[in-house]
């Protein structure tokens, strides 16, 4: 089914882009992870009318996309899953916000401003995450998580789920295709066989998990998941990037952007 092949394609695409060798790719994964979270937190800390400051934060994305040579189109495509809810919530703003922004002889419903800030926040956040995941392999992200002292068992779950994801997606795909070939008029799985089809996949997965466990036992597994040495070395370049971006973002966050409203546009909120 489309959903499944879409998911498989997405995984493969991200895999290939993560194999690149740009400046961004070679940065330490922990630096990228921390920066991404910091950036998104900064973004979300803007108030709903603080549009100018928010727009200035796009500098981080410009720098990122330039350094990583990633495709902006790909990044924007990833918006599709969260865009509906965000747009719906955002579009309510012009309707329900009774404030106005008055500048000169113009009056603008303040709800439009908050709508735009909401959309921008959504877009920028997704693009920032894309920058992270497209330049950092899953193994490196797990390495960053371990460095951040995330419990081993969680990282293990993450890795195992990722490892078997494509396999199970392919199996689900096979099941869907086999079903579709014998139920041409239906668009999905009929409820009479919900249990059987999904249940079969489930039981097969459990059997596989048991075989997996045997495989781990045979190689000395006793409950502790061991990881190897460092996957990336932290060097001065990483410090410089981290510090300069943090400094830049803090600066942008703290500048008095609302002066643009009052002094330059000469307007105010009512």
């Amino acid at each position: 089914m489309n959903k499944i092949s879409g998911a498989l394609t997405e995984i493969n695409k991200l895999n290939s882009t993560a194999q690149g060798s740009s400046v961004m790719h070679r940065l330490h994964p922990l630096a990228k992870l921390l920066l991404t979270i910091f950036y998104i937190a900064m973004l979300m800390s803007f108030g709903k009318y603080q549009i100018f400051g928010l727009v200035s934060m796009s500098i981080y994305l410009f720098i990122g996309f330039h350094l990583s040579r990633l495709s902006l189109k790909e990044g924007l495509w990833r918006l599709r899953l969260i865009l509906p809810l965000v747009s719906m919530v955002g579009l309510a703003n012009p309707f329900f916000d009774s404030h106005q922004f008055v500048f000169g002889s113009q009056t603008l419903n303040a709800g439009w401003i908050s709508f735009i800030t909401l959309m921008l926040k959504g877009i920028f956040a997704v693009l920032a995450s894309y920058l992270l995941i497209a330049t950092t392999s899953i193994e490196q992200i797990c390495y960053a998580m371990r460095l951040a002292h995330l419990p081993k068992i969680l990282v293990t779950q993450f890795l195992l789920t990722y490892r078997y994801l494509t396999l199970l997606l392919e199996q689900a795909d096979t099941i869907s295709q086999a079903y579709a070939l014998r139920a041409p008029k239906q668009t999905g799985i009929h409820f009479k066989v919900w249990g059987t089809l999904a249940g079969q996949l489930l039981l097969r997965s459990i059997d596989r998990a048991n075989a997996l466990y045997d495989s781990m036992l045979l190689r000395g597994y006793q409950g502790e998941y061991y990881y190897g040495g460092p996957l990336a070395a932290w060097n001065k370049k990483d410090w410089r990037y981290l510090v300069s971006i943090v400094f830049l973002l803090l600066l942008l966050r703290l500048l008095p952007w609302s002066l643009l409203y009052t002094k330059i546009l000469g307007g105010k909120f009512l």
Partner: protein
Amino acid sequence: MSHIHIDIQNLSFAYEEQQPILQNITLHASEHEAIGIIGANGVGKSTLLKLLVGLYLNFSGHIRIEEIPVEAKTLPLIREKIGYVFQDSDSQLFMTTAYEDIAFAPRNYGLPEAEVERRVTQALKLVGIQHLRDKQIFKMSGGEKKLVSLATILSLTPDIILLDEPSVALDPRNRRQLIKLLNSFEHLKIIATHDLDLVLDTCQRTIILANGRIVADGPTQELLTNRKLLEDNGLELPLSLSRK
């Protein structure tokens, strides 16, 4: 005289009470031997291999690997000496990259990281897949995964290698590569398989299982050319011989 051998005496095993799988199996395997275990589906070939590595312990009789009896206490020791290659590579390989999977065993046995790296490199070289070192497993083909599976057990430098249906899901070229590789290994090898032609090409000795017992144990050339013996036990002549 070498200590590398397997001794099985009067082995019987059943998953459930009323359904015995193996009955009174006795066999001795020595160093450098390559033994093919063949038989119809469900006859217990895989089960026999699993018993050798102690995946089931509720058997009767004796199994000794290099003089060490197979029991709960000795499992870590035994599993250092025997490597088991699963039929389904996706059940064998559970890390994300080949390197990590091959390193799994030595790390679990507490070896320092530098040593682990050395062994992984060695294993990759032995199997001829250095180029797959950092490749992600889910992107690999069936043949590549099988080779990585082999490498994962070689990193503990076992004396004995067990293979369960190794040529299933391999294309002709990969299969040929596997055969060449197996022939280059000096280990004691036991291969449970349907692929009688593989047995012809890699094993000097063949054991035929039927109804849970060993019905024949002898040189491959003799057993696999004996049409009646094979057909009586749910098998056929190897393809390469049946065309004549």
